[in-house]
C-alpha cells in the first residue's frame, strides 16, 4: 500500500481515475450476468386456507433489464406469490367448497377482469366443479419468476409459470383439475395484480357435471 501513496497521479485531487476505475470494476463484477440476471429464490411462505392443502413457492427470479441493473426485492417476490396463491384459492379451492367466484378486481387488473368475462373465463376459473366432501389437495411446481425492468431499473412487470394439480373427493368420486400456463402481474397501487394470462385447464373425474368444461385454454390480450 505504501507504494500507492507515493504515486503522484493518485494523490488527492488527482484521484478521479482511481475512483472511476474502482466504480467500473465494481459494476463489472456486479454486471457480468448480462441483460438477464438470476436470483435464486427462496420459498415465499404462504398459508394454507382452511379445508385445503396448498403450497406455492418461487424457485428463482430472472430479471430482464432494459437499462439500469435491477433486482426484485423479497417483499415484491412474496407479494407476487401471495397474489397467485389467492388466485388459486379463488379459482380452484373456493369452487370446490361451493363458494361462488366473487369480485376479482383485487387479483386482476381491469383489462384482465374484462378478459375473464369472455371465453377465457373457463380456462382461468373452475366454476361448476362439484363440492368437495373433504380436503382439497393442491400441489404445484415451483414458480419461476421473470421480471422486466424499465430503463431506470424499476420493476413493474413480473411473469411466472404456473402449474397446479388439485385433487378433491366429491360425493360422486374423485375430481382432478390441472392448470398450467403463464401469468404476468403488474404493480398496481401498491400491490401486484394479474395483468395477463395464458392458461390451460384439464378437469377430470366422475363427479363433473355435463356443464363443466373439461378442457379449456385462454389467452388474455393485451
Amino acid at each position, binding site marked *: 500500500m505504501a507504494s500507492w501513496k507515493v504515486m503522484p497521479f493518485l494523490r488527492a485531487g488527482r484521484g478521479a481515475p482511481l475512483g472511476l476505475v474502482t466504480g467500473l470494476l465494481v459494476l463489472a463484477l456486479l454486471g457480468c450476468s448480462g441483460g438477464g440476471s438470476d436470483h435464486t429464490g427462496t420459498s415465499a411462505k404462504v398459508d394454507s386456507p382452511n379445508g385445503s392443502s396448498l403450497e406455492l413457492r418461487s424457485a428463482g427470479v430472472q430479471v430482464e*433489464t432494459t437499462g439500469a441493473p435491477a433486482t426484485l426485492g423479497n417483499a415484491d417476490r412474496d407479494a407476487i406469490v401471495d397474489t397467485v396463491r389467492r388466485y388459486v384459492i379463488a379459482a380452484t379451492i373456493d369452487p370446490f367448497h361451493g363458494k361462488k367466484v366473487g369480485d376479482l378486481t383485487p387479483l386482476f387488473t381491469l383489462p384482465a377482469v374484462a378478459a375473464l368475462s369472455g371465453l377465457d373465463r373457463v380456462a382461468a376459473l373452475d366454476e361448476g366443479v362439484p363440492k368437495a366432501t373433504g380436503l382439497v389437495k393442491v400441489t404445484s411446481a415451483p414458480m419461476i419468476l421473470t421480471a422486466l425492468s424499465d430503463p431506470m431499473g424499476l420493476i413493474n412487470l413480473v411473469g411466472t409459470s404456473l402449474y397446479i394439480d388439485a385433487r378433491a373427493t366429491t360425493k360422486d368420486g374423485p375430481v382432478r383439475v390441472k392448470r398450467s400456463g403463464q401469468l404476468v402481474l403488474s404493480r398496481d397501487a401498491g400491490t401486484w395484480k394479474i395483468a395477463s394470462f395464458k392458461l390451460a385447464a384439464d378437469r377430470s373425474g366422475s363427479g363433473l357435471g355435463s356443464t363443466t368444461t373439461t378442457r379449456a385454454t385462454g389467452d388474455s390480450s393485451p
Partner: protein
Amino acid sequence: MTTVIRRHPFLAATLILPVVVALALAGTFALWLNGVRLPFASGAVWFEVTKTASADYTVSPDKPVFILAIGNDGRPGDTSTRGDAIHLIGVNPVLRQATILDFPRDTGLPIPGHGVDKVNASHVYGGAKLEAQVLANTVGVPVPYAIDTNFPGFISMVDEMGGLDVNVPEAMHDANSGANLNPGPNHLDGHGALAFARDRHQFPTGDLKRSENQGYLIIQALAQLRAQNTGPVDTLKLLGNLGRHTTLVGIGVNDLYNLGRLGLSIDPANVRNVVVPVGQGSGTRLNLLPQARSLFADFADDAVLQSH
C-alpha cells in the same frame, strides 16, 4: 518499487495505464451488457418507440389501437432523416384482426406548419411524432404510438430474430437496393430483408409495390415472433431483449408490454395489407385518389376493412 516509480515515471505509466484501460473497458462492457445506454453505443439502438398520446393513455382491450411504423432513411451519422417506409397499423383486440395501410413516401399531405409536402418530409420537420400527427389527421384516427427504425437498426433487428422467411413472388435483382433474390421461399438476413424492403426500380408500380412488400415483411415478422413467443412471460423476455436496443420516448415498459401482447395476439392470417391508392400529382408528388377517403373511413371505425 517506490523508488522505481519516482525515478521512472514513464515506466510506471506504461505499466499502469494498460490496467486502467482494461478495467475501464471491462466496466463499460458490463454497463453495455446491462443495457445502459452509452453515448458511444448508438449503433446498438434498433428503434425508437414514441408515445404521442397523453401519458395516461393505455391500450384498451376493447378498442382499436393505431400504431405508425416508420422506416427512415437514416444511416450512421445522419442527423436529418426522412420517414420513407410508412405503415399505419390498426389492431382490433376484440376481433383479433388488423390492417396495415401502406403509404407511398411521395404522397402529398398537409403537414402542420409546412403546407402540403411529401409525407416523408414530415419526419425531417418533426420526427416520428409529427409524421404520426400527419397520418392521424389524414386518416381520421388517433395514433398514440410510433415505432421508428433506420437502416442499421432494421438490419440488426432482423439478424437478432434469426432472419425472416419470405416468399418472393418474382425474381428481384436490383443493383440500387442490393436485392438479389430468386422467386420462391427465401430466408433473409438483415441486409437481405432491407434490400427486399427497398427494391422498387424493377417494378412497374415502383414505390407502391415496395410499400406493399414492406407491409408483407411486417406480417412475416409477426408470424415469426408469434412462433417464438407463445405466452405472456415469453413476451416479457422478448421485450427484455428488444428493450435493451430501444429508445423509449414518453412510453414505459408497461405500455410496451401491452402493445407487444396486443400485436402477438393477432394471427398473421387475420392481417390485411393494403396500399393506399395514389395517383400522379404535381411534380414528383403523388396525390391521394378519391377512393382513399372511403378506405380511410372503413379503416377508422374498427381497424378492420369490411368494404375494401
